[in-house]
């Protein structure tokens, strides 16, 4: 396998075969060769240099304190704040914005000695399922550049799929890690809501957002998750419960586990190639000793509507701070009101404006009960249905996406784009952990298998995914004509 894992790179560093600076440089040049896919918005050279030097010192002077991520290069999504690094959320309205503080999750990676090399492209304010909503151009899928990588963390998925970095950070509000992972044939994990601090994450929907890793193996996903997870006093929604150690869970296999297959997730609307790949994956899990049983989540058909009330409602408030007064784009007008109108009218793209208006409408006087309040009730039903399913099974397995990566421009109708996330967004509504791992190809395009667990059973989800991955080896598949050079210098 020419795309090295975190463990491979860590071993190489410790054997003295390479250095953090060398790895960073190799990643950077690999990313540059991906320019036609447009996955990178900017490089973080100064930060990379500092971090690489720091990691080198740690590895040389106190290697016992160096964790598995020390000296390892990575990229992160343009919604995560780092002090001194331009962060724009893929939007014109934040062009030039430089945060004066570093968020917690990224801060923990920096403390672990990881080396950030680039900021990846994404849908504007994390709103989208194809990375076509970025103000800085769409991203191409490494498997077929004329197709989308998925979204909103399209850039983060693409750079890992192309082998330029061993891991990246993305965010998931309705599927924005899992769906691009599925489209790009890599592992992408959304932790339990509250497991990873949101401090420093430019908010889209506060009760749904989570930060999570992309990598080419579940093992690497687990390493990154362990480094970033855990309570943060700066995030009141982060859980004070201890993070269950993941490492020990990973190799235990699925023998004896009960896995549920949600009937509604395999009903209609799946592309035949997706259905075939997922059914094979389910059969594989049975071979490995798991018992599969059908469960029903009847409110699934209402989940999209629920999500597209709650998420826009929250984002309409979260994005109100983009007003041209303290930071970001400012379109000058004599009156304050006109400044607001022009700045926000010009600074936000169409999808963002749609969602702000949808959310404002759902919260507005006379509509609050029928929309927002109603959606919060259906959300309760959705969460309870998952709870009931988990009384009978240990985890759920199903497709991540009903379709494979589609051509750019193919889903210009907003609603058709929203339908991409039908199988992922219920998981966010219930705050559950969910991962997508590659489970096959359909006409040369990646298909993803989703594993969903009860709240705080992140380790269990990773365990099921790891067992499947190790038995089938789909994660070793690489895009057919990768423009990227390998990240390890020969």
């Amino acid at each position: 396998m020419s795309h090295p894992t975190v463990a491979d790179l860590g071993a190489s560093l410790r054997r003295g075969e390479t250095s953090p600076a060398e790895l960073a440089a190799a990643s950077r040049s690999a990313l540059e060769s991906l320019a036609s896919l447009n996955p990178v918005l900017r490089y973080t050279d100064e930060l990379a240099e500092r971090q690489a030097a720091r990691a080198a010192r740690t590895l040389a002077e106190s290697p016992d304190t160096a964790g598995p991520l020390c000296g390892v290069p990575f990229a992160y999504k343009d919604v995560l704040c780092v002090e001194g690094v331009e962060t724009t959320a893929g939007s014109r309205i934040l062009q030039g914005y430089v945060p004066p503080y570093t968020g917690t999750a990224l801060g923990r990676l920096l403390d672990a000695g990881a080396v950030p090399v680039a900021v990846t492209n994404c849908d504007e304010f994390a709103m989208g399922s194809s990375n076509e909503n970025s103000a800085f151009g769409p991203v191409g899928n490494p498997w077929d550049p004329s197709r989308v990588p998925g979204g909103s963390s399209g850039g983060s998925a693409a750079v890992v799929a192309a082998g330029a970095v061993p891991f990246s950070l993305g965010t998931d509000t309705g599927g924005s890690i899992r769906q691009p992972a599925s489209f790009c044939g890599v592992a992408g994990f959304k932790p339990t809501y509250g497991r990873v601090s949101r401090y420093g994450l430019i908010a889209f929907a506060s009760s749904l957002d989570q930060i999570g890793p992309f990598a080419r193996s579940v093992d690497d996903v687990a390493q990154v998750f362990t480094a970033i997870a855990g309570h943060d006093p700066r995030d009141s929604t982060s859980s004070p419960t201890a993070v269950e150690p993941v490492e020990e869970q990973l190799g235990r296999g699925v023998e004896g586990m009960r896995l549920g297959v949600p009937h509604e997730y395999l009903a209609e609307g799946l592309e035949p190639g997706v259905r075939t790949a997922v059914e094979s994956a389910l059969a594989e899990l049975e071979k490995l000793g798991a018992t599969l049983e059908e469960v029903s989540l009847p409110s699934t058909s209402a989940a999209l509507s629920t999500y597209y009330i709650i998420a826009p409602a929250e984002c309409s408030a979260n994005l109100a701070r983009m007003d041209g007064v303290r930071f970001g784009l400012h379109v000058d007008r004599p009156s304050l009101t006109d400044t607001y109108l022009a700045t926000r009218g010009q600074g936000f793209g169409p999808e963002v404006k749609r969602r702000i208006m949808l959310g404002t409408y759902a919260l507005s006087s006379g509509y609050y009960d029928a929309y927002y309040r109603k959606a919060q009730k259906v959300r309760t039903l959705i969460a309870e249905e998952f709870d009931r399913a988990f009384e009978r099974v240990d985890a759920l397995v199903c497709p991540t996406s009903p379709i494979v990566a589609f051509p750019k421009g193919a889903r210009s109708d907003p609603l058709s784009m929203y339908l991409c996330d039908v199988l992922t967004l219920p998981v966010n509504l219930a705050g559950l952990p969910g991962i997508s791992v590659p489970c096959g190809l359909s006409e040369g395009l990646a298909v993803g298998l989703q594993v969903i667990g009860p709240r705080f059973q992140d380790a269990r989800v990773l365990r099921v995914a790891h067992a499947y991955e190790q038995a089938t080896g789909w994660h070793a598949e690489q895009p057919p004509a990768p423009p990227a050079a390998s990240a390890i210098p020969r």
Partner: protein
Amino acid sequence: MTTTSAVSTLEQVVERYEPVIGLEVHGQLLTASKMFCGCSADYIGSPPNSNTCPVCLGLPGVLPVINRVAVEYTVRTALALNCEIPEHSKFDRKNYFYPDLPKGYQISQWDMPFSRNGHLTFLVDGEEVRCGITRVHLEEDTGTLQHAGDILQQARSSVVDLNRAGVPLMEIVGEPDLRSSEQAREYLVRLRQILVYIGVNDGNLEQGSFRCDANISLRRRGETELGVKVEVKNMNSFRAVQRALDFEIVRQGRLLDQGETIAQETRGWVEAKGATISQRSKEYAHDYRYFPEPDLPPLHLGADFVERVRAGLPELPQQLVERLQREHGLSAYDAAIITAEREDARAFEALVAAGVPAKAAANWLMGEVARLSRESRTPLHRSGLGVDGLAALITLVEQGSINGSTAKDLLDELYLPGGDPAAVVRERGLAQVSDQAELERLVDAVIAENPAAVADFRGGKEQALQRLVGGVMKATRGRADARVVTGLLRERLVP
């Protein structure tokens, strides 16, 4: 509809119409840090935008974290106002755009506030009045704006300072139970007193840590339906509140007399004009679109939390007034004055604890000390002399070591710089002459030296006695006890 004189007076208006007034008070809490971040809550005097952090600046990616003490102070206030504390409460987002509101929403409380259904009793002309308290809730303060030329309506630009943004702000909503501007004023005086007493607010109207808005409507006497409500803002003193409400009563009364309808609007009090001015503008109507704050888990305040806060509640003014009357025999009148400011009540109790008789303590505090405190703009607890020094001084008088006049002079002299009264008396020989033999000798001497005055006094002129007393005082350089001297003179002169 009768048309009465267009210049109805306040008295004439209130004969026909009943004012219905509800007050909304916002009080900044005396916490160390802001409501949702660690910046200081004590921002007065800080250079612009020097008391901010990513959270209170509302930068992308930040999150609020509740200040536990702010919650406690709010519950403490609610208990002092006899409110119920529901077990479940939460914060909500109140959404609107304004440059002093960094996030584009204020974190406040909408439908599940910390407390409800309380009441406040206070006195108006000796009569007890009770006003309902609808709710006490907690929110964050906004930043401050300065407008070019200082007049918002004409300013072409404004500047924003976010030092104050995020300071904990408690909102106390009163029921519309008030029926006059006097009642409104006394309600505010009592409310402010309570907030200062329980240590949650410093009661400073000028600096804006205690703010008041009013809602006022009029209805024909005897009617039960409410009239159109007008909101009145920008009243920066209790006097302004009273004047503004009286102005509104007259304004609305005259309009109603003429058959006009009252516009439901917000009006601002303009001190210089002695009038309220309509603040209607092209501003679009606010739809606050409240929804539960997703970044903050809800609160469960159980019985033990509430009881702990209740146990820590300091003595309230009314309780103190009753206790001072009971324990120290003060009159209701004196007790009310002594307790008007908590620091005065503390000083009184400290003096009594140091052995000063209650009546003397009250008299000194209400008299000389109040005057000095006013003139020097320095309250006793911040003066150089302090309560301890004052106690020592009064004790010297009570013991007869110095006379009242000497004590007053010493107080004047030592109040600001401080000092040890007993030491000063010793050093300067200011001790009162109290030796009976010495006094008798001086009295005899003055009688001998002032035959005219003696004759006048024996002839019926009381004033003449004072001249003789003055003579003894002069001979002792003011250190005799005037009452004793007067007594001795009378003895000698009246056969």
